[in-house]
């Protein structure tokens, strides 16, 4: 699933279907054909040029959690089509297709897990599922996960990979911004830490709601972090985008995230945060 920015700030996708069938992936940064198995070993970082390919939710969980520790929450909402939406195709068809492609019910996986030995409640988004967009199901599962975290007194870790709101659910998708933020208040009431990991991409309605309200916000190198898409900004304002716009480094420099870490370091980084926040010692 290679996806990288071109030099105009836009994004290039390689057709998923063909890639899935292939034994190799072509890096859109350096053109190298990389053996799939090799990519898994390198955590989906191009072995030639170091470019980051985004991770599926399953890959992210494997990369972040202590082995075998992920226990999915049995939330199981699926197939929400609140508007009976049809554009060129029925939304239900798109949902079914995304489900079959990803093996997921919707664009997020939630469950209990351990990270460096620390029990956490985890929600991991998947960009393959209609751009990781947040509709009713995603909102509901994130809210349910937060409720579980507050109840079980476990830190909540949200790994964002989302282009924003799920357009096909219209204003219902907009409401998920309020829903996830409302749920977030439970963590504050219970004094439970909330850690957000922003990856490629963390944009739109997802960034403008729960993803911006963590206690600790870590950006993965290679992340894209911003409210509006580069093309929208250029078209609306006529502004030229500065180099490095909406990168993880940009977000760090502008005070939007706490740290930028490499994919290899992310697991240990979360361990450090969880360690200082939760291990032993006296809490009030």
């Amino acid at each position: 699933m290679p996806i990288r920015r071109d030099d105009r700030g836009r994004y290039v996708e390689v057709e998923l279907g063909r890639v899935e069938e292939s034994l190799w992936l072509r890096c859109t940064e350096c053109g190298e054909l990389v053996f799939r198995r090799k990519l898994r070993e390198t955590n989906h970082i191009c072995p030639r040029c170091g470019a980051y390919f985004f991770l599926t939710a399953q890959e992210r969980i494997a990369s972040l959690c202590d082995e075998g520790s992920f226990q999915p929450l049995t939330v199981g909402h699926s197939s929400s089509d609140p508007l009976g939406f049809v554009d060129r195709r029925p939304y239900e068809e798109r949902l079914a297709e995304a489900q079959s492609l990803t093996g997921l019910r919707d664009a997020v996986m939630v469950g209990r897990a351990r990270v460096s030995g620390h029990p956490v409640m985890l929600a991991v988004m998947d960009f393959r599922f209609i751009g990781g967009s947040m509709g009713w199901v995603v909102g509901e599962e994130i809210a349910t996960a937060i409720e579980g975290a507050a109840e079980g007194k476990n830190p909540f870790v949200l790994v964002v990979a989302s282009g924003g709101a799920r357009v096909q659910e219209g204003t219902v998708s907009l409401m998920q911004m309020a829903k996830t933020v409302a749920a977030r208040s439970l963590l504050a009431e219970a004094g439970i830490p909330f850690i957000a990991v922003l990856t490629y991409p963390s944009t739109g309605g997802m960034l403008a709601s729960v993803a911006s309200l963590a206690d600790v916000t870590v950006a993965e190198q290679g992340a894209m972090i911003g409210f509006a898409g580069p093309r929208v900004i250029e078209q609306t304002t006529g502004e030229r985008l500065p180099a490095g716009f909406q990168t993880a480094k940009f977000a760090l420099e502008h005070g939007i995230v706490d740290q930028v870490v490499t994919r290899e370091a992310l697991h240990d980084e979360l361990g450090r945060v969880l360690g200082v926040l939760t291990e032993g010692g006296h809490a009030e």
Partner: protein
Amino acid sequence: MPSEEPIRVLEAKVAELRQMVVDGELDLKEELELLERKLHGLKEKRYASLSDWDRVALARHTDRPRGLRLVEAVTESFYELRGDRAIGDDPALRGGLARLGGHRAVLLFHHRGATAEEQRTCRSGMAKPQGYRKALRLMDIADRLRLPLVTLVDTPGAYPGVEAEEQNIAGAIAACIARMLSMRVPTISVIHGEGGSGGAIALAVADRVIMLENATYSVISPEGAAAILWKDAGAAPEAAGALRITAPRLLELAIADEVVPEPLGGAHNDPAATADALQAVIVRHLGELHVRSLDERMAMRYKRYRHAGGSRSNPDQG
């Protein structure tokens, strides 16, 4: 809205005729009455069957009452507060202290600008981070002074610009949503024009969400949806329908609590009547909210947004 054309033509003719009668040039009273009835009938027929796309056009109508002009019509007095105390003041998102039907309140509203020059400085109502941070400051004032919060929402969306990104527009919107959920005073949001995406919901997470009949509230513009999903700009009218972004549709979805009818042909045909109707509805809801306890209001608001978009069965619960 091109289909208004025949009505406008007939209206002009009737007006001419009326003037002739007034001037005593002709005795055409009966004919005039007949014509006026016909005109009214035409209008009723026309506006009774407004398409969603028609309503989008009305929501964006240049003469629609908006911004400071609407605020002045809805309130008895208004004292503007400016600035976010950190970066600057945003003329696209304004607010202040108001009296409204005898109630004191803190008011927040989008302002698109009345003149071309003002529209430029207000970016047609697309607010910047300092606008949303000013809103946060005014929300604090409302809670501190025990004044209910009333927001008037009308924006194409938050401003998409380089500086806005540098100043964390997403975080400012998220903070507004969180703050509106934590408000201790009664809160009412009135979406009266375009309720554009994140820029709108930042001010619309309230105890009561009221929409004017021809207002819209959407996650994306119909044109945007047409381009992305239909890959065809011409599909905007179809997208407007499919997205269900108009007040009647959002009432069905329980996203709006009440739809305030507009004068025949839209709010711009009678701004004063529109303002009066809006004020009456706001005052009624304020009255209803005032009698409830803090705990009750907070619990209702939490529940409302925690379950926003309805509850669904879990057919394949594992």
